[in-house]
């Protein structure tokens, strides 16, 4: 029996025939995503159901020295779960159990394949007083995948979603099953514990240090009512001050910003949407009243911020919908291709990012479209430069790819850092990184993954 056949048969023994494939059609789908990343080779795909099956796959991969790439929803659009050096893609979505909800300590323990939509639906039905921070991703995105790439969601007042992680179960690259957080020492998954923060060994590593199979995620009280306040300005220089004043009120669940050049009437306007919540109309109205005074304190008669008293229903729906239908932006060009460059940056860099982002989009023959999110109390902003393209037109794909590269470069130049960085952006980041930091990353990787089987090619500089 040849090595390829042996690996295939071993995977079938582990997961079952229907859940393993090395057929070109199945591999085709796993070799590409909706972004501009060029397709890369995949040799096998397997969809395990249990942590023990994942463990067996990891042991097999070590024995046969074949790369493995764990995949959640596969929606980063940056090629992070398309193997760089071939091997096995582990589609985690069959591990989809919601194991426990602790109402007192407000957390949920889930398996790695639970989708955002499924968790939202489960909580609404069974625990209507609780919610999780729902990202602006399609509902098929996995909760754990989002945590591991430092995603963010509808409750960004509490920071990005990885801040909401209490603990994880992880299969290490050498096959051991390991628990991290309070669950390592206690039956309860209530916090990371007063322990060394080992979760950091797996968050932001793009599956290069282990396969997370379970996670405990913090839940938050769900208020009775949600509403929003919408501001607009034509001067991006005012934005840091506006954000600062909004966060100073401590009334925003979430702050989003957007601009798009189409339709024409939106061109040149930056919109700031503030999601608020409360248990009564009085509470909502009070928050609206306080936030409504902010424009008076910002800018002057020439450069002003306007409170939009009458919000068009479609805009309101766009901001308040649960889950948010962010994918609508992806169809801007009606071409089935979409990628965005999310740059995590300090708030004061937003005006320059805005202006130069427009220049980059126009340079590459694209319309400017951005969607940004403020984290915590204005501690950080995810500035998202969106590039919708026609995947049937190779020139258009190439234009979007070039725009992405230029945008990542801009982000780093402004002191920001590309979020969920693709291979090109990883390289750009590493070039700017303190060499000792990168050496530390390499040492950690070598220690955890001595055979280099975990999603190799990522974070290699």
């Amino acid at each position, binding site marked *: 029996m040849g090595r390829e056949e042996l690996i295939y048969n071993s995977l079938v023994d582990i997961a079952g025939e*229907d*859940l393993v*494939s090395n*057929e*070109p*059609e*199945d591999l*085709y*789908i*796993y070799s590409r*995503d*909706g972004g501009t990343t060029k397709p890369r080779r995949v040799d096998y*795909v397997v*969809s395990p159901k249990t942590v023990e099956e994942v463990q067996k796959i990891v042991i097999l991969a070590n024995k046969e020295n074949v790369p493995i790439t764990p995949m959640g*929803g*596969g*929606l980063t659009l940056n090629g992070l779960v398309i193997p760089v050096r071939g091997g096995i893609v582990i*589609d985690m*979505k*069959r591990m*989809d159990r*919601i194991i426990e909800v602790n109402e007192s300590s407000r957390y949920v323990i889930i398996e790695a394949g639970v*989708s955002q*939509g*499924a*968790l*939202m*639906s*489960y909580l609404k*039905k069974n625990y209507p007083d609780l919610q999780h921070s729902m990202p602006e991703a*399609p*509902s*098929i995105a996995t909760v754990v995948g989002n945590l591991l790439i430092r995603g963010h969601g509808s409750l960004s007042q509490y920071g990005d979603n990885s801040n909401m992680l209490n603990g994880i179960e992880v299969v290490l690259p050498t096959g051991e099953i390991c628990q991290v957080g309070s669950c390592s020492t206690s039956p309860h998954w209530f916090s990371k514990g007063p322990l060394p923060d080992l979760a950091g060994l797996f968050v932001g590593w793009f599956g290069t240090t282990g396969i997370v199979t379970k996670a405990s995620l913090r839940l938050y009280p769900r208020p009775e009512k949600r509403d929003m306040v919408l501001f607009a300005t034509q001067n991006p220089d005012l934005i840091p001050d506006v954000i600062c004043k909004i966060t100073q009120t401590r009334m925003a669940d979430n702050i989003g910003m957007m601009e798009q050049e189409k339709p024409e009437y939106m061109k040149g306007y930056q919109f700031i949407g503030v999601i608020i919540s409360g248990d009564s109309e009085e509470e909502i109205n009070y928050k609206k009243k306080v936030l409504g005074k902010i424009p008076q304190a910002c800018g002057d008669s020439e450069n002003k911020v306007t409170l939009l008293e009458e919000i068009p229903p479609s805009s309101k729906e766009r901001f308040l919908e649960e*889950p948010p*239908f962010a*994918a*609508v932006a*992806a*169809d801007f060009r*009606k*071409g*089935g*291709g*979409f990628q965005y460059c999310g740059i995590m940056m300090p708030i004061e860099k937003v005006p320059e990012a805005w202006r130069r982002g427009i220049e980059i989009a126009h340079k590459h023959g694209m319309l400017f479209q951005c969607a940004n999110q403020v984290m915590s109390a204005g501690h950080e902003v995810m500035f998202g430069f969106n590039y919708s393209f*026609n*995947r*049937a037109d190779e020139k258009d794909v190439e234009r979007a790819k070039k725009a992405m590269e230029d945008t990542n470069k801009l982000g780093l130049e402004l002191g920001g850092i590309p979020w969920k960085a693709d291979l090109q952006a990883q390289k750009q980041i590493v070039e700017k990184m303190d060499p000792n930091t990168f050496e530390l990353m390499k040492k950690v990787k070598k220690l955890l993954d001595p055979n280099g089987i975990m999603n190799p090619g990522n974070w290699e500089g």
Partner: protein
Amino acid sequence: MALKDYKDIIHRCFRCGYCKFTSDYSYLGFNCPVYSKYRLESYSPGGMMWLIYASLVKGELKPSKHLSQILYSCTMCRNCSQECKFKFNEDIVNILKAAREEMVDKQLVPQIVGQFLTNVYDYGNPYRELKQNRDNWAENTEIKHYEKGDEFLYYVGCVGSYDTVSQKAARALGSVLLKSGLPFGFLGSREVCDGNEVDMLGEKGLFEFLKEENTQIFKELGVKKIVTLSPHSYNALKNNYSNEFEVFHYTQLLRDLVKSGKLDVSRGFKAKVTYHDPCFLGRYNNEYDAPREILTAIPGVELVEMERTKENSFCCGGGGGNFYTDILGSGKDSPSRIRVREAHDTGANILAVACPVCMMMLEDALKAEGLEDELAIKDISEVMNAALL
């Protein structure tokens, strides 16, 4: 439309995955029956769209038997078209059908699909049964053949005519219609396959042939109104045949007969009943109320809904010819077994259906799950027949 007519649309799918869910993202699982079974992205509606584009439009992949296996695993339940958020959603199932037409042209259909189509061509049904046996289900009943002047043609379809489980439903409906006093009759050996599955499997030419044959017979006999046992027949006759016939699914007719007092259900039927929406009645033809109105009109029936119901209903796995081809296969994660477990979870003792295909699929699943002592599959016509005075 042919696949080339979708060339400006087909690449627009992002694989964003809304098509896999119900409208409320039910945590019970995914609502695409194929993806629920296989759980590889290639078997999701988006995966299929990308594969069709790659193989039949762009030429990146050579059309193959495995591609054919993937494309023919789809039950055409239309959940994807309903849940896709984009404007091209209506085209998803049409694109898949057009791709199947190409697979037929390239002679790349799975062997079992080829067998289905050949049988329909040769015998007028997929079972290789003789035409004269189409009468057998009505033996020892008073249900008669259609005669000129009858108000309704009772179109039974292949599954109700030949499948021994579904024949119970065919007889029960015949019995109910007799009790209503409506002048009706069935075609028996003159009936030909309605072609709904043939159309779904991409054999356009054969579908047109069947349509013409049936239409000719209907015209010869002066048929004006048709009542169908199967939602599959209803879909084909109502939406794809000439509009000179008025077509009803039997639940619509029975609902009206109960309302008008021509059927008296006051004898009642004591049972806790849950109802499974057939895709070709619900998602294809937006009829969710008639079956429920019948059930709730029957004294003693306590109707309880499953978690996934109406437009969110989960397909039994039998559509698109899968009741015969069985490409989706059996096993714990097969759609019919998932659905039977869901019905069992309601605490109902009757799982009511309004489709002979659903009936045979769920009956098999019930046995596989070992739930025969706790749950029974019954067609709504059987429930009604028992309730009639």
